[in-house]
């Protein structure tokens, strides 16, 4: 057994895990953060995507011990401190970019990182940006739409002068 320290959604968590524990299982079953979903456990579907030190990773392909000392953001950590939905979350709602909602946490994490790095993606960049996650319900059209809508919402909120600050 290994004791590890993870900073998850801003809170420090100490967990004792066997070496083989997947990060996805650690988040879901040890920390009770069940918003991170597991769709294939072989790194293809992207449902388990979380942000590790800000970058999207497949939490089913990482052992929890490997994440020791790192910062993790899960879908539970995307909303603001008062629970207000992030621009990405609001855009998914407005654009009907989710149906069953199972893949949604992975898409939300992916798109959050995408827009941080590229606040105004082109159509091709938006499509490429979400093309590592599977969704069986939506046909993706509204997900791509939500990427653009989230970019708009973010821009409206930060204003043109703050553009650099966002980056």
């Amino acid at each position: 057994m290994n004791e590890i320290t993870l900073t998850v959604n801003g809170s420090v968590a100490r967990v004792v895990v066997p070496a083989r524990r997947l990060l996805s299982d650690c988040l879901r079953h040890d920390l009770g953060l069940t918003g991170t979903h597991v769709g294939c456990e072989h790194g293809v579907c992207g449902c388990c995507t979380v942000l590790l030190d800000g970058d999207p990773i497949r939490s089913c392909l990482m052992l929890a011990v490997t994440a020791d000392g790192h910062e993790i953001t899960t879908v539970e950590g995307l909303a603001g401190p008062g629970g207000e939905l992030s621009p990405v979350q609001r855009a998914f709602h407005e654009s009907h970019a989710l149906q069953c909602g199972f893949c949604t946490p992975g898409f939300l994490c992916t798109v959050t990182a995408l827009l941080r790095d590229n606040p105004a993606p082109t159509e091709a960049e938006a499509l490429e940006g979400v093309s590592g996650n599977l969704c069986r319900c939506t046909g993706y059209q509204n997900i791509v739409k939500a990427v653009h809508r989230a970019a708009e919402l973010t821009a409206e909120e930060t204003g043109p002068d703050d553009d650099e600050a966002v980056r």
Partner: protein
Amino acid sequence: MTTKLFGEPIPRREDPRLLVGGGRYLDDLGPGALAAAFVRSPHAHARIAGVDVSDAVEVDGLVAIYLWEDLPDRVGEPLPLLIPHPALTHGRTAHPLARDVVRHVGEPVAMVVAVDRYTAEDVCALIRVDYEPLPPVVGPENAVQGSALVHADVPGNVGAHLVQEVGNAREAIEEAEHTLAFRLDVERSASMPLEGRGVYARWDSGDSSLRVYTSTQASTSVRMAIAATLELPLPSVEVVAPDVGGGFGVKIVHPWPEEILVPWACIRLGREVKWTEDRREHFISSAHERAQVQYVRVGFDSAGRVLGLELNILHDHGAYTPYGIIVPIITSTQALGPYKIGAYRVEFQSIYTNTVQVTPYRGAGRPQGVFAMERTMDRIADHLGLDRTEVRAANFIQPSEFPYDQGLTFQDGRPLIYDSGDYPASLELLKSLIDWDSFEERRAEAAAEGRRIGIGLGCYVEGTGVGPYEGGHVQVTSDGRVHVSTGLTSQGQGHETVFAQIVAEELGVDISDISVVTGDTRRFPYAVGTFASRAAVMSGNAIALATRKVRDKALRVAAEALEADPGDLEIVSGIVRVRGNPTAAIPLKTVAVLSNPLRYAFDAEAARATQFAAPGSPDEPPLKEEPGLEGRDYYSPIRSTFASGMHAAVVETDPVTAEIHILRYVVVHDCGKLINPLIVEGQIHGGVAQGVGGALYERMAYDEHGQLLNASFMDFLMPYATEIPRIETAHLETPSPLNPLGIKGAGEAGVIPVSAVVASAIEDAEGLVISRMPISPSDLYDLRLAAARGEAERTSRSAG
């Protein structure tokens, strides 16, 4: 004031919880539960000679190992055959755990319960099963040879044989001016929801009650199956479908072995037990669909009118038939589409193979039927040198001809009578949206750039909203909140939103006061399930009828309080008021209080209904009808309602690499009155995406040993965003005369014609006859080589 809600594209009310990780999917429940895992057969067909658990029992954390012989009589019986049919003369279902023989890779042999899933899988790996392999039967055409048998007592591997005929098709074909005959192939695919199946059971030994959560499309029927099999009193069993991460048909099958075994083990062990399916298990132990070989013979006149059509189908239903022969019945009947065919004969054989069982996947046999019919229409057009849209138009049922009786028996056992539709208008709209008539100019422009493009179309009719019934319950409580429940389940269709829209509009309350619960037998125990694009039609209408009961009651109670005539009252934003006199008004929440005569004032609102506050007439009993402002009602249609649609696509095929790109995809869709266009469009997008998967990418690659070679998302190619074209949609709204809301189902529509449309467009681009789907770049490349050798058929247009 209450704004109009029926027909409005309001964003979904399910979203807020799902966007913050607040969904409750099966594996999110029961954090302390024991975990189950299964030993599954690695052989397609084998006799089990013995099972050795001597190493397995040494593992720390093991709780129990169960084999078939450990199950009590009733639990060990074969699973139910859900939909018997006289033509299914040799229906066979699996035992929950294999008894003596395994018949497909993935069939469960042993159940392990342990402290967690990791440990349970460790145990599974140490259980040694001694298999004596038997000859595997793979592919329906091999299977019907009957040289090896999937079930020793099913000769020729034929489970069912059914013929339906209207008129004398063979004679009509013989006498026709033109005839064609050809063979078509459709591969296997699968529903493949991103959340697999899963079951979690809790047993209260104190009061002997069982609660089961299962990722299902039919919680009420799972409940009855569990109660019957475990011999529990029905009132002691509750089944809840929590948030379900997609279904698309596979979760309508029930009870799965795990839905019996997990509750049984939970009771036996007195501990909570949970099983969550992993992806490989889903590939090899749930269900697939689509696979058919079809033989078509058609006779037609020079205008392209079909005079006789004969369709022979070999349907591969895999190792077992728990869902009967619904899929080939739907193929047989829905092949007719929007057409009046002179005479029609359809015959199918439903065949056992040593592969995963075949049960409905979104579309449920319709994509195959539409493929047969639309390929036929294209061949007729090519043979006669006519435009493909002209041939279709020549065969359409006309708007004046409804109700139109196709003369067959549909999947619900009722006559196949179409209720309404306007197929010529759909086709005109489709042609104009995709610029059908000017396509030759675009083809020439593309050709000038060295590019190869083609256009195609496909038409379908979809029987939706099959019976027997659904119900709804609507209750207004004394806080003014409106609680709605229906028994069928949700897997992402937005039922919490659309049913709330219906209630808000029917009752005259704000949607923010309404909550909707589906698939929870504690709230509504009577239901059929979510399949066949039936939820909006069935539960939507049932809830509307229940709401009307509540409204009538509210008006009666309010009329008495306001000393007005109920006919003069209206409900606006939760206030019952006299029309034209806004001062004479009473909130619905007060009406709710008054509808339940009380002795005890448990809060300030309740005080209004106590015996000295609301004395009433001393000559009448205080309670005049059932207490409470609530209503329950059911909707049971005489038969299905028939939605329709037409799709068209422009594809580009790479002259060198044979890559296939869909450049445009246009959908004209008619599901009657739309409750929420945003949600209907979402359903269409998702359906088309699954259709594109089935047309270009997805297949279940079984080898001759019955091994599924691509049982992972690495190898089974589900489309990502980059594979799905932008989908352009337009709606016609031809109301259904069969139900109070005038609606038809929309859930499956998107997927139905896609293979036919894509085949039509590729055929048009390439000038090569396309007769099997899906088609990959390699398939197309090989087809080109075959054509160059003179071994593949060219279209007359390209040949001539």
